[in-house]
């Protein structure tokens, strides 16, 4: 390993691999090294890759912590996961390590876009703080060129085929899109719309619950979606000019809710940091990220749109690559 690459406390490294052997070549030394040094490791992978690792590690796998794959569904949730892990091991003298594959093959373009924004934000979120080393595998065979290029842009120290390198395309934060920049495709013509103010919160919840029932969401998922949309519209009322517009529509495999208002979210880390218990308010966006399968937020001085989706039908854990 080239130690000169460790300039900042957060070592954020991409592993570009082709095939399962390559994946193991890139991850096993990292994990075994951590185990030898007594460093805490959290492994966040889809079921297929996690199983591959478990089999390769044998008994050693029991000494690692594996995150349940569903926790990776909404990329924005992952920042909190790592912060909590770091806090948990704050007393440990060694470097904390993690493996995280958020951009697995089979994810939609919308999900991959959020993955890229999330990865770029990690560098900012962990610029100061305890030293830790995060390895992010990217499947060269199954992911598109755009996704790979985006990964090169947000990982300062990429590793390919087990050899540490240096990314020539790692750009300044200004080049990567901020998490809320840009726009989203327009809602489809077949949607139901409801304009709301502070007096319409109950009506919003009812409408979401109705669509949740129509989409046959399980009760828990329906309640989660109602709560999430409620948080978004409450934010619109409190910070977005007193109200906004809700649009709901059904897509194959998902129920989508889109909330627009005139507010502007300036904090790039909004919704990604779990609020401490003694902070009484300001939990809304963080909650939305925990509850929904995907959260896309676009915000500018012209206004904000927050679009959340809940998977309908069978709720898969990660796609097996």
């Amino acid at each position, binding site marked *: 390993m080239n130690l000169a690459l460790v300039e900042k406390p957060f070592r954020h490294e991409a592993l570009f691999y082709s095939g399962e052997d390559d994946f193991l070549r890139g991850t096993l030394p990292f994990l075994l090294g951590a185990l030898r040094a007594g460093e805490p490791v959290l492994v966040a992978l889809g079921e297929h890759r996690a199983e591959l690792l478990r089999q390769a590690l044998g008994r050693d796998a029991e000494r690692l912590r594996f995150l349940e794959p569903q926790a990776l569904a909404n990329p924005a949730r992952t920042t909190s996961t790592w912060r909590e892990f770091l806090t948990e091991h704050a007393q440990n003298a060694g470097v904390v390590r993690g493996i995280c594959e958020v951009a697995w093959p089979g994810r939609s373009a919308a999900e991959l876009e959020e993955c890229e924004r999330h990865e770029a934000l990690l560098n900012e979120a962990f610029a100061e703080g305890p030293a830790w080393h995060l390895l992010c595998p990217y499947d060269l065979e199954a992911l598109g060129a755009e996704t790979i290029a985006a990964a090169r842009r947000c990982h300062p120290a990429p590793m390919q085929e087990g050899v540490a390198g240096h990314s020539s395309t790692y750009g300044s934060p200004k080049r990567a899109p901020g998490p809320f920049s840009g726009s989203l495709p327009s809602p489809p013509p077949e949607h139901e*719309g*409801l*304009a*709301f*103010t*502070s*007096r*319409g*919160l*109950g*009506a919003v*919840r009812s409408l979401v619950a109705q669509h949740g029932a129509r989409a046959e969401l399980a*009760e*828990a998922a329906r*309640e*989660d979606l*109602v*709560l999430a949309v*409620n*948080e978004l519209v*409450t934010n619109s*009322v*409190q910070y977005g000019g007193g109200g906004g*517009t809700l649009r709901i529509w059904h897509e194959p495999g998902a129920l989508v809710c889109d909330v627009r208002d005139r507010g502007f979210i300036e904090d790039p880390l909004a919704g990604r940091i779990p609020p401490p*218990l*003694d902070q*009484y*308010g300001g*939990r*809304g966006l963080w*909650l939305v990220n*925990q*509850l929904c399968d995907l959260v896309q937020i676009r915000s500018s001085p012209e206004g904000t749109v927050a679009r959340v989706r809940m998977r309908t039908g069978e709720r898969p854990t990660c796609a097996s690559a």
Partner: protein
Amino acid sequence: MRYDAGVGAQEHLRVETRRSENRVVLHLTGELDLASSSILERALEDADVSSAPLLVLDLDELKFVDSTGLRVILLAHERARERGQEFAITPGSQQVQRLLSITSVAEHMRVLASPDDLSA
């Protein structure tokens, strides 16, 4: 596009305060959100509330609570603590329990099986 005038907050949440020898119980019915939070806040300011040894928020008939409602509950908990008063809640519906658990608030509060319960 529909425009909805919405219902008044009063129909949204009802708080009944019941004082007994060793506790005061605030029984919530309905939905606790941005529109109805002030109803709970006002009920908590009642003189009967601060003088009891134990303050119980009975959430069993609360159908819905969000982060703004949670804020009022957390503040009530903190104020009780500051005046040396015991504080407890009842579990509430699935939705209420979900919010309290996902925010890790539940593990920091005393939960009673029912509002007149003696055990934690």
